[in-house]
């Protein structure tokens, strides 16, 4: 058993951590200002879109509007974390960066708001504080397209659609906390995007209801394919900044970085607590740079879906992911895609490569071969599972990861030796 490492580093307070996280939306705001053509029109378009997978906000509303949307969502969540006086742990870092990433791919202020209201009502009904459920609610916004779909896809008359969409969002926010807590048992904590799995189940239910009343969800594929050089530069600056910050907090974090590889990554591997903030930030920054380089090498374009993938990987690098448990999974996906003759530069394939690291704990717990196998299964499943929920679950890879882990873990456990 690997417990907490004794690390000597500069103490970082709650407020300072909030400022560090705020660097992301501040940078996005600045970037939006640099790309301010039709900024408000783009933002309006983003908010009134059905946002079904895959609706890339960079293509839909323009680069400036997409970054402004992400900045607004970032500031809103930072406000809540500050208001509730939350201790910023690995879980909240992961939740915040996942929110930020998916603000380029489906989330906007209109479609996340009802989920927060539902979460607040759940907290009231249970006589607990909203801060107790805020992490789950932040993640639950992966189901936000169902709200936009009902509100804006012309399935219902305007007022009815808006009321119904809002009500469905509140209902999901109200029920998702106990469902998410229950779902972790299915994959035994080996699928890091547990809400993705939960949202997949809930999304399947709602998609089935819509289909049952003859309201078909039309597939969407709006993907940005233009120049991404300025976005790459922005990401590199942010991720290098994280590494420099990590080295400032713990000057020895470069030498001590290997400590992080001792952790399997299974839920809940809270790196800031276990190895300190210095090593955690170095890990997040390094994983971020690695993902940007990987996308470039594969010939992909950094667009909304890829930004969502990258920020999710970086966020979860504070909660279990590192090179040792991620690379075998990614290799499994890439090898399978290659064998099946897929184009590795395609956005959906790159998304699968990056998001497949949701099952990184399988490689961490059972070794690289099991990790590779998990990657193979992940690609096969993720390419087919979107049709089940009709794209209303943004965390499609988390849904797939839950199934992969739920199938593999009992089998791998059965062949483990010992008591």
């Amino acid at each position: 058993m690997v417990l907490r490492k004794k690390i000597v580093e500069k103490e970082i307070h709650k407020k300072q951590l909030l400022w560090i996280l705020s660097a992301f939306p501040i940078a996005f705001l600045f970037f939006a200002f640099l790309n301010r053509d039709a900024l408000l029109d783009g933002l309006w378009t983003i908010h009134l879109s059905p946002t079904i997978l895959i609706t890339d906000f960079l293509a839909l509303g323009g680069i400036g509007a997409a970054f402004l949307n992400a900045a607004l969502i970032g500031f809103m969540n930072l406000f809540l974390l500050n208001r509730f006086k939350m201790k910023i742990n690995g879980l909240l870092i992961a939740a915040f960066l996942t929110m930020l990433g998916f603000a380029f791919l489906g989330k906007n202020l209109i479609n996340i708001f009802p989920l927060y209201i539902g979460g607040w009502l759940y907290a009231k009904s249970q006589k607990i504080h909203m801060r107790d459920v805020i992490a789950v609610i932040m993640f639950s916004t992966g189901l936000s397209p169902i709200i936009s779909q009902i509100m804006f896809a012309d399935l219902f008359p305007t007022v009815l659609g808006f009321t119904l969409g809002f009500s469905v969002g509140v209902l999901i926010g109200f029920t998702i906390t106990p469902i998410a807590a229950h779902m972790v048992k299915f994959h035994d904590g080996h699928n890091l995007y547990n809400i993705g799995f939960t949202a997949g189940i809930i999304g399947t239910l709602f998609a089935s209801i819509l289909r049952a009343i003859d309201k078909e969800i039309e597939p969407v594929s709006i993907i940005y394919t233009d120049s991404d050089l300025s976005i790459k530069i922005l990401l590199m600056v942010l991720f290098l900044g994280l590494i420099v910050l990590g080295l400032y907090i713990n000057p020895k974090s470069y030498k001590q970085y290997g400590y992080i590889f001792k952790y399997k990554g299974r839920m809940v591997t809270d790196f800031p607590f276990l190895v300190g903030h210095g090593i955690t930030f170095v890990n997040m920054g390094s994983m971020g740079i690695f993902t940007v380089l990987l996308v470039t090498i594969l010939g992909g374009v950094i667009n909304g879906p890829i930004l969502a993938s990258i920020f999710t990987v970086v966020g979860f690098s504070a909660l279990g992911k590192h090179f040792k448990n991620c690379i075998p999974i990614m290799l499994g996906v890439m090898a399978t895609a290659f064998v099946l003759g897929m184009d590795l530069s395609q956005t959906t394939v790159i998304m699968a490569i990056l998001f497949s690291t949701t099952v990184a704990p399988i490689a961490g717990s059972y070794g690289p071969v099991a990790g590779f196998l998990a990657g193979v299964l992940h690609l096969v499943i993720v390419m087919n599972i979107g049709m089940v929920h009709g794209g209303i679950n943004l965390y499609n890879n988390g849904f797939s990861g839950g199934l992969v882990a739920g199938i593999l873990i009992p089998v791998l456990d059965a062949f483990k030796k010992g008591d």
Partner: protein
Amino acid sequence: MRHEVKKICRIVDELTTLLLKEDTNEVDFKIKREKDRTVISIVDYRTTYTAEDVQEFSACFDVQRQHEVEEYYWQLVGESDGDAELTVIGTMIDEASVTLKDGNMYIELVRYRE
């Protein structure tokens, strides 16, 4: 339903698994529920853990209560016999003391009712 009793049982389950699997063949547990708190007392007889390990245990439990982690992950506690969810246990308790005495390890965990 807040599952308060189940959460306490899961903490006990997790620690039973850990101690029997990694350390000893004899463990005593005592759970005392009071009006505003629950105290879990554990005696791990003839422990092989060193003073340094005991300090590490202490550090793991001394995280401060984090309700958001508890609400999301409490059902993982006591689920696996492969990994110990000590970090989650740390977020589910308010006070902890771990001591080594006469070759035994004594753990006392306190969880307040909110």
